């Protein structure tokens, strides 16, 4: 892990996207104080993890890697155990979060009878019950059915926008992050490659031209708009540009005497971006 510099703000859902083994969980463990970094600092709500561990961690609710719970206790007993570790959570609040995650009917059953989705819900319940300022969810959609994922999405939005939580969600599923998050950080091999707002994503398109003089096209793009383009096949040039510029560029190409045979624009999705950035690392 190096050069990881992340800021998560209240009322924001922050997505942390990376392939398996890219360093998502390690980063999250460092934020949650489970691993001590060799260098660098973590501050939560203004409190440094090194110096004010208790104050910092009191503002965090998290699920890390998997929603592990005591299997020999019931769901409610699990929550009571964890509630006993902070002074803020009342039984009333517990009932409230159980209702919120939709576990009301099964909360008095032992956890070893739960499905993965139910464990995930219980995990979310324990993470949010203390009304944390920072909610960290590692792969929260694991084990949830599509309806469950939709519910989770709504829940997270409510927590972030109504209760002003900062929500940090890690995932390796692109679509999920794109739908759920406001901001995305893309991580690969321990390095954060890019941080961007999801709503800005649609503005860029990937355009591919088929021209007779690809080198000239690249030169023109570089010279006129400072756009880095690349030659993909014999007569093809590809670049990421803002959607509104496509017409200008085509006009310029023709003016400069290029024979433009073909022009194709893909709406740039997170997937394109991700593949572009990580050089096509295997992703599920």
């Amino acid at each position, binding site marked *: 892990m190096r050069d990881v510099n992340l800021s998560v703000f209240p009322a924001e859902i922050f997505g942390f996207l990376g392939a398996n083994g890219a360093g998502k969980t390690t980063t999250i463990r460092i934020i949650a*104080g*489970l691993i001590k970094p060799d260098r660098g600092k973590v501050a939560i709500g203004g409190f440094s993890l090194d110096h004010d561990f*208790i104050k910092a961690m009191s503002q*965090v609710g998290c699920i890390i890697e998997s929603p592990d719970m005591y299997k020999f206790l019931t769901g409610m007993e699990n929550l009571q*155990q964890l509630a*006993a*570790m*902070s002074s803020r959570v009342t039984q009333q609040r517990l009932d409230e979060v159980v209702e919120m995650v939709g576990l009301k009917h099964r909360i008095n059953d032992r956890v070893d009878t739960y499905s993965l989705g139910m464990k995930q819900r219980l995990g979310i319940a324990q993470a949010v019950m203390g009304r944390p300022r920072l909610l960290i969810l590692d792969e929260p959609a694991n084990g949830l059915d599509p309806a469950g994922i939709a519910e989770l999405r709504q829940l997270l939005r409510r927590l972030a926008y109504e209760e002003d939580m900062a929500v940090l969600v890690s995932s390796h599923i692109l679509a999920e992050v794109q739908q759920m998050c406001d901001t995305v950080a893309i991580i690969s091999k321990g390095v954060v490659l890019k941080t961007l707002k999801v709503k800005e994503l649609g503005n860029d398109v990937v355009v591919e031209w088929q021209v007779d003089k690809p080198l000239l096209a690249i030169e023109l793009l570089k010279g006129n708009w400072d756009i880095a383009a690349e030659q993909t096949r014999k007569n093809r040039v590809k670049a990421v540009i803002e959607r509104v510029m496509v017409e200008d560029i085509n006009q310029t190409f023709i003016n400069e005497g290029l024979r433009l045979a073909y022009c194709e624009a893909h709406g740039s999705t997170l997937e394109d971006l991700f593949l572009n950035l990580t050089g096509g690392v295997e992703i599920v």
Partner: protein
Amino acid sequence: MYRLVQNEVVKMLRKKRLYIVLGILLIMISAFAYGQYHSLDRTREQLAKRIGMTDTGDWRKLAEQQIIDMKNRLDSHYMDEEHNSTTRVRMEQLQYYLDNNINPVDISGARFTTRFIEQSIYLFLPLLMILLAADMVSGELAGGTVKLLLTRGVPRWKVLLSKYIALLLLELNVVFFTLLISVAVSGIFFGYGGWTEPVATGFQVAAGKLITSNVVNVPQWQYLLMVYGLAYFVMVVVGTVSFMISVLVKSTAASIGIMLSTLVSGTFLSSFLADWTLPRYLFMVNMRLTDYISGSLRPIEGMNLTFSLTVLAAWMVAAIVVSFWYFTKRDILV
């Protein structure tokens, strides 16, 4: 902190660990009592065969004779004082048996309860402690639940301390139930009496010799408390070492395995103690504390109750230091 300890105790109870331990105790004590009961029958038979003691009253004659002989012995000025104090103590005991009409061969519930601890202090009770302690931390590591505990705004040392206190509480419960079960079960076989029966204690070891000049009789109940006090000490030490192992390794099976082999190696190393001084600094060869107070040990130069208690205490302190140091430093990767 109070609620943290409560949490840990509830977890132990719900894991059924305590109940398993108590169940094993019940079975073992019943088996031991049954065995004692039968070997008692055989002892009686053998005695009857050897000295013709058939009538139940015959032991009185024998005891009376022995008391007379011992008086005789005390009068001889060729006996050293050391011999005399054991003789005197033995006389008091016989006199008690005569006064209360108890056949000294018989076992009372109280005597059985003491004997059970004496037999189990170096292996059986420590094994139960391992069952209790071995997965206290490693279980949380293996189940991943340690993440829940350490991301709560509670410092790590407090989490570990609450676990340790819970362990001490449960160990005290095991001591209590050992006493309760063995009194209750042995009472069925041997009756519920014998609490005031005199027991010799006060043996000392110096320069590799058993010194009996301080030997006195104490009532059985007091001796019982002494034995249980020592047993609890041993249990705490084994529990603490086991707790440390459970902090150091991730798997409960490995943790139990390490402790088991350590204990077994203790019984094996004990046989070298007289000639080889190194093993005496290991905790597992110093657990037969009750042998020191009952005077039934093979005296070994340089080993006495104080020595063993010191070795055990040193191990306990070391185990606590290592546990807390490692637990507060380690990275949690599960």
